[in-house]
């Protein structure tokens, strides 16, 4: 009798294992997992920058009692992993000292700092090894930034805080991360002569690591609430325009065909006579799913419960990150693909990729 009860208990215990594993997996890896940092305080902080009579960091101490600077924590000097784990804390890596295996959505500083040079990334000067042959000012810089007080962000990128204003412990539990969560990826305007606004978006829990991204698992980017708007908003491209204004809005770009610079913040035309209504097509006659390698922005993220695989021409917009990764890539001009490989009429390996994901009639397929 005892044996029978024991067997039933063992059997019950075994049968619950898959359920427990599922719960753990969902908690750990689902796309709605919190990016808010959890884990041991000592992973990131030191109270006095002192341990056993020596400094924890010879370059410290750092602000907010951190053990390292931004890139110090978000680097991997020992391998190609782009998400590293400190105890239970997962840290997105933006700079590997050896070639990254699967870059994140923002790209990686490896190529600009280690191998290829200035054309392959933003020159964040605080990163070790970063080439200093920077441009004198950001291309397309707004004239309002042409003052010395603006130099550390608009004339050069002194450090990561030129773009990011860290708020690792902010409550980012909302699906669409905004001000309460420290803004999407901590992208918040600087303090000098700015309104302090930032970017909104839905954050993929794996930072879109290349091997973990899919049409229904990815970041969602806030677009302009009014297509072709050049005004201030919480969109991703408007944030880029802080330094690259001339590439954004309407003044230099235009408002309709013929465009004079590539538009950003403009809805993919829905006209069936144009090629864009077949975004990412697989068969040449029907629209394809959201492609994380040429993403679109959404004019209204409210109501989204998570990433969507559906793209709606006439609504969803081309924006800066449709083509670029902000940190760096293996391609010139921090492009997601090699522009030189974009050959009109091609039926080769680049057909259906890169520019041709939107410009569906320009390749040879």
């Amino acid at each position, binding site marked *: 009798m005892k044996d029978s009860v024991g067997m039933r208990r063992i059997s019950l215990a075994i049968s619950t294992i898959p359920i427990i594993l599922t719960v753990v997996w969902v908690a750990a890896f689902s796309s709605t997992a919190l990016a808010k940092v959890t884990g041991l305080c000592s992973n990131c902080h030191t109270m006095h920058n002192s341990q056993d009579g020596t400094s924890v960091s010879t370059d410290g101490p750092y602000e907010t009692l951190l053990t390292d600077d931004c890139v110090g924590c978000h680097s991997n000097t020992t391998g190609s992993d782009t998400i590293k784990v400190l105890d239970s804390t997962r840290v997105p890596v933006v700079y590997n000292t050896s070639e990254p295996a699967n870059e994140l959505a923002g790209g990686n500083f490896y190529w600009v700092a280690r191998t290829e040079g200035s054309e392959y990334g933003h020159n964040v000067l605080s990163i070790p090894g970063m080439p200093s042959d920077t441009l004198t000012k950001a291309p397309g810089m707004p004239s309002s930034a042409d003052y010395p007080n603006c130099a550390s962000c608009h004339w050069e990128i002194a450090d990561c805080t030129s773009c990011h204003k860290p708020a690792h412990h902010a409550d980012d539990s909302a699906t669409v991360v905004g001000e309460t969560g420290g803004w999407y990826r901590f992208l918040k305007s600087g303090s000098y002569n700015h309104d302090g606004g930032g970017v909104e978006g839905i954050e993929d829990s794996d930072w879109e690591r290349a091997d973990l991204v899919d049409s229904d698992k990815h970041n969602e980017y806030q677009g302009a609430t009014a297509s072709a708007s050049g005004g201030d908003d919480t969109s991703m491209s408007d944030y880029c325009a802080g330094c690259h204004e*001339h590439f954004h809005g309407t003044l230099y770009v235009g408002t309709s065909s013929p465009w004079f610079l590539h538009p950003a913040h403009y809805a993919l035309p829905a006209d069936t006579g144009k*090629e864009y209504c077949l975004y990412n097509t697989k068969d040449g006659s029907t629209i394809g799913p959201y492609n994380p390698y040429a993403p679109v922005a959404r004019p209204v993220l409210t109501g989204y419960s998570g990433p969507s695989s559906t793209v709606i021409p006439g609504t969803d917009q081309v924006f800066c990150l449709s083509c670029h990764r902000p940190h760096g890539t293996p391609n010139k001009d921090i492009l997601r693909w090699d522009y030189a490989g974009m050959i009109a009429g091609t039926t080769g390996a680049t057909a259906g990729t890169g520019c041709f994901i939107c410009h569906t009639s*320009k390749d040879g397929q």
Partner: protein
Amino acid sequence: VLLSHYIRIIFGRFDEFGVLGNGKEEVREMRKTMLMLTVVLAAAALVGGFYMPATAAVEGPCVNCHTMHNSQGGVAMVFGDGVTMTQGALTRSTCLGCHTTTGSDPFDGVYPYVKLGGTATNYLAGGYFTDDGGNHDDASHTLASPETPAGYDDTEIGAWYTGDVGGSGGLTCAGSAGCHGTEDTADEAEAISGGHHETNLSLGYRLLGVDGEKVLGGGTGGDNDYEEALNDSPSIDDYHNLYSANQAALDEASISELCGKCHGDFHGTDDTTNVDGAWIRHPTDVVLPSDWEIPTSVSGDYDFEDWKYNPVGTVDADVPADGTDVYVTCISCHRAHGSEYDDILRFDYGDQQAGSITEIGCLGCHDKQRGS
């Protein structure tokens, strides 16, 4: 094996088939049928093999022609013709910026050039712009000229031309002040939008159109080199264009109708004939008399020089055959952009002499005026 059977059937001896008497007639009929079928198939293969649209969708690296933000290394891109700003459609230069060469080779395999550096030694079918200044230059259409086109008649096809309005820029390559693209669009890039990539199929031959109708045209005989080889040294093997004519009653336009948009008095019948129907100006889009030499020789070895010096047109730009209707067009005598001769002619008018043995130019068609 099939070929050997074919040859045996056509050329074999009757006794090989074991036929005698009336059986021989049946074999003869079979041979005749097979030979006719062979001729028809060969003709179809020739037409299918050699006729091709004279335009092809642009292929090659996007970077050759486009710049996304007009920014490289912190400075604006510069690409030919002194251009520092991007043009419409994110192109790196103007029409002429891309289609101008500092060399003398009019076609480098990528860009057909309509403006050449130095002394031109050859040119393409449309000829080349010979200078930048002076209105109504004898040897060239003059871009940026604000003058009213010669023979302009706004009652002919429509008062669409804007190149002469207030000297607002004058003649352009495309748009409402130019020849290419849609005539109701002022911006040049917008006027030819979709033309280079063939995503706008409403644009016709060489991106030419007339009042919503596309101009028909084509080409035949090898790779499309815009007649570079033909103009260099005419040969029967050279590619040449095929021009449309007499399209008035059809849904597509002729090449001469295109010219008539600006030079209406020189096209149609209103201003080219008098009340008695006699010609008072040289006709265009008119069929050549069937007893003239060209209609009876367009597929013979005579025609390759004619394709350079006095090409004809056909309805729908079809491949002409001996004895078919062929038409005189504007570009039977002229090159659209310019030439080395006055009046943008294909030949020196001053050298055309009745009674001479010349077989090109005026006398290429007017064979009765030749000497012997």
